[in-house]
């Protein structure tokens, strides 16, 4: 047993010795973290250095096994690390789909060789991953996907089109779903495979969003050759892997939005933009909406705590990640809408004069947030999952 007190003291010391001064106190907006990869751009010159020192200790992936360059920490140690990072106001050294989605799935389903090849590169931020699930005709009904993979010798030849592939144009590899048996029942002919984005025949075209940015792409695949050894788990068994990954995705999305953390409170915003009658917010309607939001937010946070405490006590929760996905993302949407209401006309800026940086960010964050209840499976689909798997209602 490691002495946790000693671990904390050493961690604190190490962080204060090694974290570049320039990253302390750096708060990154959602989607603005360091995503790594061969084409990485860093929001701050110290950020790269920060990622490297952390990666060298495996602390970009604290709980992953040390044999694959992870940190090898226990849950309790990882918690201490997070707390000490928070105390020094240090940002996440690295984020992205490698750490949150494909990594955990490889650890569960990958072969020894696959783990040795890919996990260390995720840990050190060398490879950035994207997710090739959705297709123009297959969104919610993902299992209807059509992108075809045909075996030729020891390679698959892949043809088809993916869509809404977030950051495909910045990514080095893609984990994707392909149809390997067109005759089988739709869930049973799907394979989960890894694709190097530099392979000939892969083309990613950005799509512009209502928020003005273009984080996702249409991805065209024409006679793309992928080694058969890149299949994860068994051929035609991709649906199992796909679902496991979706659980990670939903948990990640929910965790990113729920709880709020150290963000400015609604009251802080209100103080800047709305009249107060002494200690009381003058606009009663707004006051009610803020209360509703804050109470729901705390109830949600307590529920997330409860789920974590139950897991720690060896009573794992059921298929409740859907609940966190729905509630967490919809809370974030309400938060954004409420911030618009509080900020008033100053929330209408797109660019240029008369608006602060914070106001302009708010406008775009609000637009981006409308996607929260769509990405990773829509709220309607999550409600179907709860009805079926948690409540046992018939199809």
């Amino acid at each position, binding site marked *: 047993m490691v002495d946790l007190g000693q671990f904390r003291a050493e961690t604190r010391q190490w962080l204060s010795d090694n974290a570049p001064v320039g990253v302390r106190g750096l708060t990154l907006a959602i989607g603005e973290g360091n995503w790594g990869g061969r084409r990485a751009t860093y929001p701050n010159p110290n950020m790269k250095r920060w990622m490297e020192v952390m990666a060298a200790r495996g602390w970009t992936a604290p709980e992953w096994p040390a044999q694959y360059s992870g940190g090898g920490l226990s849950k309790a140690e990882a918690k201490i690390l997070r707390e000490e990072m928070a105390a020094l106001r240090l940002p996440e050294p690295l984020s992205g789909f490698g750490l949150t989605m494909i990594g955990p799935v490889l650890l569960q389903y990958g072969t020894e060789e696959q783990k040795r090849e890919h996990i260390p590169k995720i840990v050190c931020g060398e490879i950035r991953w994207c997710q090739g699930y959705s297709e123009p005709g297959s969104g919610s009904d993902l299992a209807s996907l059509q992108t075809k993979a045909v075996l030729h010798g020891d390679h698959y030849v892949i043809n088809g089109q993916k869509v809404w592939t977030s950051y495909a144009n910045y990514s080095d590899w893609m984990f994707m779903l392909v149809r390997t048996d067109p005759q089988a029942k739709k869930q049973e002919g799907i394979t989960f495979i890894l694709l190097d984005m530099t392979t000939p025949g892969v083309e990613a075209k950005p799509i512009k969003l209502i928020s003005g940015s273009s984080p996702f792409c249409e991805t065209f695949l024409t006679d793309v050759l992928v080694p058969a050894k890149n299949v994860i788990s068994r051929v035609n068994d991709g649906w199992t892997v796909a679902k496991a990954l979706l659980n990670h995705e939903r948990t990640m999305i929910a965790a990113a939005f729920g709880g709020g953390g150290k963000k400015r409170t609604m009251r802080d915003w209100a103080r800047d933009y709305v009249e107060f009658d002494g200690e*009381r917010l003058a606009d009663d309607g707004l006051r009610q909406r803020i209360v509703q939001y804050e*109470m729901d937010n*705390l109830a949600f946070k*307590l*529920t997330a705590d409860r789920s974590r*405490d139950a897991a720690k006590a060896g009573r794992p929760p059921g298929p409740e990640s859907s*609940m966190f996905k729905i509630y967490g993302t919809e809370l974030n949407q309400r938060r954004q809408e409420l911030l618009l209401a509080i900020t008033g006309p100053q929330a209408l800026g797109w660019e240029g004069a008369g608006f602060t940086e914070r106001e302009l960010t708010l406008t775009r964050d609000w637009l981006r947030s409308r996607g929260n209840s769509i990405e990773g499976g829509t709220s309607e689909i999550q409600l179907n999952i709860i009805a079926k798997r*948690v*409540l046992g209602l018939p199809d």
Partner: protein
Amino acid sequence: MELVLTEDQELLSKTAHDFVRQHSPLSRLRALRDAGDPVGFSPDLWKQMAELGWVGILVPEEYGGAGMGMADFVVVLEALGRTLAPEPFLSTVLLAGQLLAHAGSAAQKEASLPGLAAGERILTVAYQEARSRYDLQRVATKAERQGESWVLSGEKIQVLDGGAVEAFLVSARTAGEANDPNGITLFLVSRDTPGVSVTLQHRVDDRAAALVGLNGVKVSQAQVVGTVDGGYPMLSHVVDRATVGLCAEMLGGMSQIFEMTLEYLKTRVQFGTIIGTFQALKHRAAKLFMEIELARSTVMAAARAVDAGTADFTQLVCLAKARCSDAYVLAANEGVQMHGGIGMTDEHDAGFYLKRARAAEMTFGDASWHRQRWAQLQGY
């Protein structure tokens, strides 16, 4: 503060649920109602519950109780809430018992708590008045000094279990204006004191309540509970704690009506198919599930805050009561709706939950009252 049941609490919960299933089906409340029972609960069952240690669960060990915490008690109350058990937990244990334990003199505790814990004494707090709504400081009942005595006059409404109690803790104004939190004093008034009149009230939820008239009721200084003029903070503190207990009962009720509804969705056939296949109903059921899960988290957090005495206790009480009020009313409304016509009949149990949900919502402050309070606590 871990939001998970300990092994002891798991065990307590199981015992309580088994007991309720065996001895306290909803049909018992229905029978008491049909018989027009003035007491409103089953004294025999109350005795049994005392023997199980539930009645004295919060009473300190030196006074014959178990000296356990709210986090333990809520587990029992939730089970009782499942079948709307009408036993006087709110009045006797959560209100009167806690007030005496917190504010009572040594003599008062000695005289009341052991009997209470043993299930022999039913006590209640008379705190509401016609226009007080949820404000505990809005007290018009007067107590005037007369030599060594006090003389009380006024009327208290919806006094819980008023038909069965042997004494009331009455809030009365000894100084200040009608809405002043200062100047309120609590008196322990025996039911048979001259000038006390008790008239039963019939409430929609079939819980026994009464109007208590105080007409020149003379009590001694020894019957003051706590300090003269200082009753409000104590009352408010105890009502906040009692609110957490009520929330646990509400959690049990909403869980039960929800499960009944789910069962119906899985069996009722219309258009040649089970109605639970209709997505319009499925999604509503899934949302209700989430609301109940969130309500559960708030009750657990509030109960643990009571025991830990943490600073955010009042805030968590507001949260739990607001959420439980909304969730219970929603679960009951949806329960009746999804049962269709049968849900509207007296023969079906759904209506009992509909009625209790409203009554519980309007006890100790409804959702919007607690939201206002929250905003005030948060400084906006």
